[in-house]
């Protein structure tokens, strides 16, 4: 008899889906909200349990739903890595919904609120399954689900610009997912498998025999590119700023904190478990990833420097951060992968924090978004100011904060690969660029506002906005703690990741 804890991963996904269905049925948004939060909490604890179990016993197990054996049944594989990801995803999801609550209930009209939370649940469900799945096709299905859900989250705040942003987002991701599907089918046609473990074996066999070389390359390329498109890898990032910049704070937080990461998680699983890094190196996909990553780091920051709209700035900086992650993948070493995973965690804590704080800051200053009009807003909500500052410092990569650690690991990972010089230089450059837009932003929110601006803000800000937002404070505090913990106690986290990656194979 297997220990009961091995059911938890499935429970997590199941809970999320059920929650989604339930909240669709609910009338009042508040209740759905509470339900979703509860589910997030539950998932968090369940995943924590799984993490503890797998990490202590140093194992990763496969859970087959309803005991149907593959290829007919659907299986889940859970190890420390998956558990950690699931934990972070669910917790960050909950915190985003918590902190963004006030904006959310203002931006989304009451009748739609339950649906919003349905979508949120769906996103959570798909994120979890993307991390847990052992079946590439299941992966595809959940990619599509998360696409729809994410689009819904964007268009929840019903403005024209948002609609158009959603449209672009939708088309872009449809393109990505159909690329992924095509690659999947070709792979299936040359191997005849969809489950990861047999797929891996046959891919390896094909690789060494050199049979079907072109279809294999095309398939891998298409799948990687498809996932790249969906996670806003550099040349395909145009949709991101509109989508993330326009949406309500919670949505932006979820989208750039989590959704992107879900696809990357799937990509990492595929890279490690199915394709194997050596093969990818051999056919040169890693180089493409590396190049895209490096370009993204620079271009994203450059674009962010030109932005004055604070949330669009943050969105562009997400492009840069995603660039970091792809750079790590592109190094094609386990160290690089570990660094990328760590950066996923850091960014998953950091970016929601920034988005929530930005939303709060503009809320207390008459919903202005341009940095010029946000001057002195930090004094109107000190917690938001502090949170934004912490996030910014972490982004620049000041020690004590998560960003520095991932920078350190990226640099170290690059040392013994052939591409050391390029990587190090770009890291240095992007540090500078990050500083160049984050520090002025921080300075301006802590700056001294001119009198007329003060007056204007004073009259246009409603009292309930000005009131202290306890939920936000809680969420921000949690996220800040997360960032700092990742910055200081990163060592155990790294151990988990390394173990998990080794067990992923």
């Amino acid at each position, binding site marked *: 008899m297997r220990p009961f804890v091995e059911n938890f991963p499935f429970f997590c996904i199941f809970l999320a889906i059920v929650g989604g269905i339930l909240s669709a049925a609910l009338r009042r948004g508040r209740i759905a909200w509470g339900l979703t939060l509860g589910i997030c909490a539950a998932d968090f604890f369940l995943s924590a349990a799984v993490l503890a179990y797998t990490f202590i016993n140093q194992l990763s197990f496969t859970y087959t739903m309803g005991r149907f054996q593959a290829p007919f049944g659907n299986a889940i594989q859970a190890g420390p890595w998956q558990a950690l990801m699931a934990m972070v995803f669910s917790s960050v999801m909950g915190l985003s919904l918590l902190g963004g609550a006030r904006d959310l209930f203002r931006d989304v009209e009451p009748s739609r609120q339950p649906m919003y939370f349905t979508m949120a649940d769906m996103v959570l469900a798909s994120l979890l399954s993307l991390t847990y799945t052992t079946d590439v096709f299941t992966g595809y299905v959940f990619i*599509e689900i998360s*696409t729809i859900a994410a689009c819904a989250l964007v268009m929840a705040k019903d403005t*024209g610009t948002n*609609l158009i942003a959603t449209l672009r987002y939708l*088309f872009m991701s449809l393109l990505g997912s*159909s690329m992924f599907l095509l690659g999947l089918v070709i792979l299936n*046609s040359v191997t005849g498998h969809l489950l990861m473990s047999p797929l891996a074996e046959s891919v390896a066999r094909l690789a060494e025999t050199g049979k079907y070389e072109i279809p294999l390359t095309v398939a891998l390329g298409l799948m990687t590119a498809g996932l790249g498109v969906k996670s806003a890898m550099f040349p395909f990032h145009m949709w991101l700023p509109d989508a993330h910049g326009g949406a309500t704070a919670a949505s932006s937080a979820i989208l750039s904190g989590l959704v992107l990461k879900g696809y990357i998680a799937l990509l990492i699983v595929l890279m490690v478990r199915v394709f194997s890094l050596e093969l990818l190196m051999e056919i040169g996909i890693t180089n493409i990833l590396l190049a895209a990553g490096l370009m993204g780091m620079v271009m994203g920051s450059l674009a962010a420097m030109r932005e004055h709209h604070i949330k669009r700035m943050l969105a562009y900086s997400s492009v840069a951060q995603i660039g970091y992650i792809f750079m790590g993948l592109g190094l094609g070493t386990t160290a690089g992968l570990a660094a990328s995973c760590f950066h996923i965690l850091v960014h998953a804590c950091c970016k929601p924090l920034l988005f929530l704080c930005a939303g709060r800051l503009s809320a207390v200053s008459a919903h202005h978004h341009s940095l010029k009009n946000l001057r002195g807003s930090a004094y109107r909500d000190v917690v938001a100011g502090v949170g934004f500052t912490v996030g910014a410092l972490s982004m620049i990569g000041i020690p004590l904060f998560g960003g520095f650690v991932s920078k350190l690991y990226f640099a170290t990972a690059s040392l013994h690969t052939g591409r050391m010089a390029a990587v190090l230089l770009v890291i240095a450059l992007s540090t500078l660029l990050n500083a160049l837009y984050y520090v002025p932003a921080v300075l301006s929110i802590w700056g001294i506002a001119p009198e007329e601006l003060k007056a204007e803000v004073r009259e246009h800000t409603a009292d309930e906005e000005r009131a202290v937002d306890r939920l936000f404070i809680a969420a921000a505090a949690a996220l800040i703690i997360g960032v700092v913990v990742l910055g200081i106690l990163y060592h155990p986290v790294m151990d988990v990741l390394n173990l998990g990656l080794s067990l992923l194979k």
Partner: protein
Amino acid sequence: MLETLMINRFSITAAILFGIGLLNVMVQKNLIKKVVGFNIMDSAVFLLLASLGYVEGSTAPIVGEGAVDAAQYINPIPSGLVLTGIVVSVSITAFSLALIQRIYKRYGTIELDELMERAKKEVD
């Protein structure tokens, strides 16, 4: 030559269809047509997928009266996948159509370029 064409007819058709769909997505200005393009792409993929599972001269894997050995059946898994895929693409299509409808309600057009400039007008 003809042999190869005949053998790979499904894949070739699929490729052509996929190309058409992609072209639609890229060049069409009309949002609905774009969506249609996506649909074409998807069906191309489904065709490919189904053809993979198809075995010449064998029947659908339905257990009728009297036991028949598995050799007569086609591979069922791809068909199952195709079904799932169709479901997914239908839902996607539905969603995008809904979205387009919303946009039409708001801006009174589904031509991309007009839409863009109207949106710009709205912003300023």
